[in-house]
């Protein structure tokens, strides 16, 4: 490409610049410069006027100050006014609030007043009621006093009546005894003629009144029975009573089913059973010559059985309540029974009637006597022990409150000096009969006397004894002089309450029966 030479361009451009400047610059520059000058002067004048104004303002300062001061004051006052207005509004608001609260409180007050009124009314009502009640109370109290007085009188009457009853009873008994005596005398005449012929009802005098048990001391080692030799299921219901023959070879047991069974001790087998009675047997006793067995039952009859024939010989009746215990009074040839009708009766098995009645003030649960002796010991419901003479047929002595509760069994020692009593207060007491003193007492946690006819027993030498607890524990204890101590306790053999234990006469074994009807022979 061909480029124009520089000199040419320079010259042409120089010309062009000139033209341009002429058109654009020169025409206008003067005017605009003048304009700018005017503007500047205007600016200056503006500035001057401003400064003049300011100086004017400052010259006028005193009055302006005053004016400003005034204006300041005015402002202040305005502000104060505003503030006071504000305060006024606040105060107004507070006033309205308080008024509202006041109204609310008034309303509350009214409601409270109304409540108060209602409460007052209720209060007066209650007060009236209280008065009525107190009146009633007083009336009741007065009645109460009257009734108390009446009770006292009645009690006094009661005691009087009681005394009278006792007297009457005695009279009745006396009359019965008299009647008996008359009967006896009347029948004596008969007897003399019949006696020689009717030997079977008589008791052979040749037979010793029982073996002298005290002589039957085992020489040598006395072994405490430790295990059951035989465990027999005796009765379907509970086994109530138990007795050994005087030689200890047989046991008779009576139960709630009314059956009396006789067992062989050695073999542990049933020897025989007597006829079933309607009600349960409460007590059994062999006669000292083992010919007869006396049984008492809940039908208030006593039956005498002849063992050889296994048949009933005589039946006595006359008690008016349960017969709890029986015993043979050999010396007087009579049967003694103790009953809950508060009498002890002597029955003559020849005549077949009760010859003597001992009244006692309390139900008698147990009696014991030695066949050779004339003394009868009886234990009663009120815890007294009474001693009677069979011969004279009168009460010798009574030990009152021997036990805290009913005496359930009385056992005489073989020498007749000591008694072991068993009571519902779960204690056993060993009593000296001659002195009427308590020698020893036995108490044990394992021993609980559960029935009114729980029997305890001693061995023939009165050194050891056994008692059964209502838990089924068999407790064997040793009687040493002043104390009774536990020898052994066998808890697991019996499953229920033990009703009776009897020590085998002349041996170191015993038998026990319990409420489940089982008979255990120990060895």
């Amino acid at each position, binding site marked *: *490409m*061909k*480029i*124009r*030479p*520089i000199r040419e*361009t*320079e010259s*042409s*451009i*120089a010309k*062009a*610049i*000139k033209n*341009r*400047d002429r*058109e*654009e*610059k020169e*025409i*206008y*520059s003067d*005017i*605009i*410069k003048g*304009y*700018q000058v005017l*503007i500047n002067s205007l*600016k200056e004048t503006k500035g001057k006027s401003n400064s003049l104004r300011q100086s004017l303002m400052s010259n006028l300062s005193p009055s302006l100050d005053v004016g400003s001061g005034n204006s300041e004051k005015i402002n202040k006052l305005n502000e104060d006014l505003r503030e006071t207005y504000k305060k006024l509004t606040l105060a107004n608001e507070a006033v309205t609030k308080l008024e509202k609260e006041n109204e609310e409180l008034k309303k509350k007050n009214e409601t409270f007043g109304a409540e108060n009124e209602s409460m007052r009314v209720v209060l007066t009502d209650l007060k009236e009621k209280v008065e009525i009640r107190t009146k009633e109370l007083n009336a009741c109290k007065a009645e109460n006093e009257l009734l108390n007085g009446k009770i006292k009188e009645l009690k006094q009457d009661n005691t009087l009546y009681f005394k009278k009853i006792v007297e009457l009873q005695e009279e009745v008994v006396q009359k019965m005894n008299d009647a008996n005596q008359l009967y006896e005398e009347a029948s004596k005449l008969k007897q003399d003629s019949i006696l020689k012929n009717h030997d079977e009802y008589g008791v052979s005098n040749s037979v010793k009144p029982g073996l002298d048990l005290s002589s039957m001391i085992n020489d040598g080692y006395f072994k405490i029975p430790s295990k059951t030799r035989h465990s027999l299921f005796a009765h379907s219901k509970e086994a109530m009573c138990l007795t050994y023959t005087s030689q200890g070879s047989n046991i008779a047991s009576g139960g709630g089913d009314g059956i009396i069974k006789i067992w062989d001790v050695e073999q542990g087998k049933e020897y025989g059973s007597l006829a079933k009675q309607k009600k349960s047997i409460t007590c059994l006793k062999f006669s000292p010559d083992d010919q007869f067995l006396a049984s008492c039952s809940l039908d208030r009859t006593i039956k005498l059985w002849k063992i050889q024939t296994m048949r009933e010989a005589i039946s006595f009746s006359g008690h008016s309540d349960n017969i709890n215990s029986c015993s043979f009074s050999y010396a007087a040839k009579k049967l003694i029974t103790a009953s809950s009708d508060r009498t002890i009766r002597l029955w003559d098995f020849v005549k077949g009637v009760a010859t003597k009645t001992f009244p006692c003030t309390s139900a008698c649960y147990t009696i014991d006597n030695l066949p050779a002796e004339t003394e009868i010991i009886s234990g009663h419901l009120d815890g007294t022990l009474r001693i009677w003479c069979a011969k004279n047929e009168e009460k010798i002595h009574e030990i009152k409150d021997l036990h805290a509760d009913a005496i359930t069994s009385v056992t005489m020692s073989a020498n007749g000096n000591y008694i072991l009593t068993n009571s519902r207060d779960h204690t056993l007491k060993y009593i000296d009969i001659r002195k009427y003193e308590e020698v020893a007492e036995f108490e044990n946690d394992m021993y609980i006397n559960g029935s009114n006819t729980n029997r305890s027993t001693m061995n023939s030498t009165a050194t050891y004894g056994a008692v059964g607890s209502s838990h089924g524990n068999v407790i064997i204890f040793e009687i040493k002089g002043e104390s009774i101590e536990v020898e052994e306790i066998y808890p697991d053999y019996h499953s229920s309450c033990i009703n009776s234990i009897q020590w085998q006469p002349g041996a170191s074994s015993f038998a026990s029966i319990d409420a489940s009807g089982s008979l255990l022979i120990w060895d």
Partner: protein
Amino acid sequence: MEEDIAPNYEIRRKNFQGTLPVQIRLDYSEIYIDKELPTYYIMQPRMSYFFLLIPQLIEFYSELLEGKGISNDEYWFSCRGEPLRFDLPIGVLYDTFIRENSSHDNLPFKICLHYHKFPTYSLQKGMSKYIFQQSLKESSMMRVGKATAVQDRLEHVRSMLNSIKEGKYDDFWRYNEEIGEHSLSQLKYFPVRIVINRHYHPYMLKEEKDSIKGNAFVIQRPVKVDATDICIGEYLAKTLSKYFFIQTEVIVDEDNIEEEKQNEVEVVERSIKGTEVIVNGLDIDLDTSLTWLIMNLSAQDNFLYITVRVPSESIE
């Protein structure tokens, strides 16, 4: 290269001192005032920027503008409704928008000052502080490949702006000597900016043209210097091939018919008749040396601004 082209200081000086009369009014559509405010007239050098006027204008219109809390960044100028770019010198803006056919209605350069609704779609707010030094760096990069000459002398920028505003040639060139004075051998690229009086790229589709709002479109296309000088026409033909093309003519030298040397001469022709090429308000022939132009007629940021005015009725 024919000869070492040296700058012509006369022309440079004369060029630098070219001024334009500017008339500034406020935009009355957006202000509410009972009296009419005076218009502001000032002679501004062609090699200056409009944003340098803003402080004076605020002071002049202080009744309206002062104390309203309008930041300097809110002000912008417009000419005939079009927002004016901050980064173009006043002379370039005038050439692009107004100067046509030397009509006398063109002067003074009537512009409007606004302080509402900054047209963020076409102008960048708050960048006027950095325009001058940015352009200096760009031109320096194009000229010598690095901008260190400017970077090391940033503190001179403000004084350069001052001298621009006042039209002080000597002060300006004292600073600019190290930055903007280069010979052809030193140049790597020609720092040229073409400004077209269209606000869209010439190759844009017609549908896109309507969607764009803007003002004078600037094409900045550096041309690599290969130690040979080129004329402005050739440059324009390369850059704006839509408007300029090279035509090869065969010139027959009548004197030397026997030699039958057919000199093929390449001439740059305008594709649209009436297309003007203006630099600093001067019509330039298309075969003028580009290097000479760069040395003498560069603007204050060392770019050569070539205004190409395409007639508006032409078919695009």
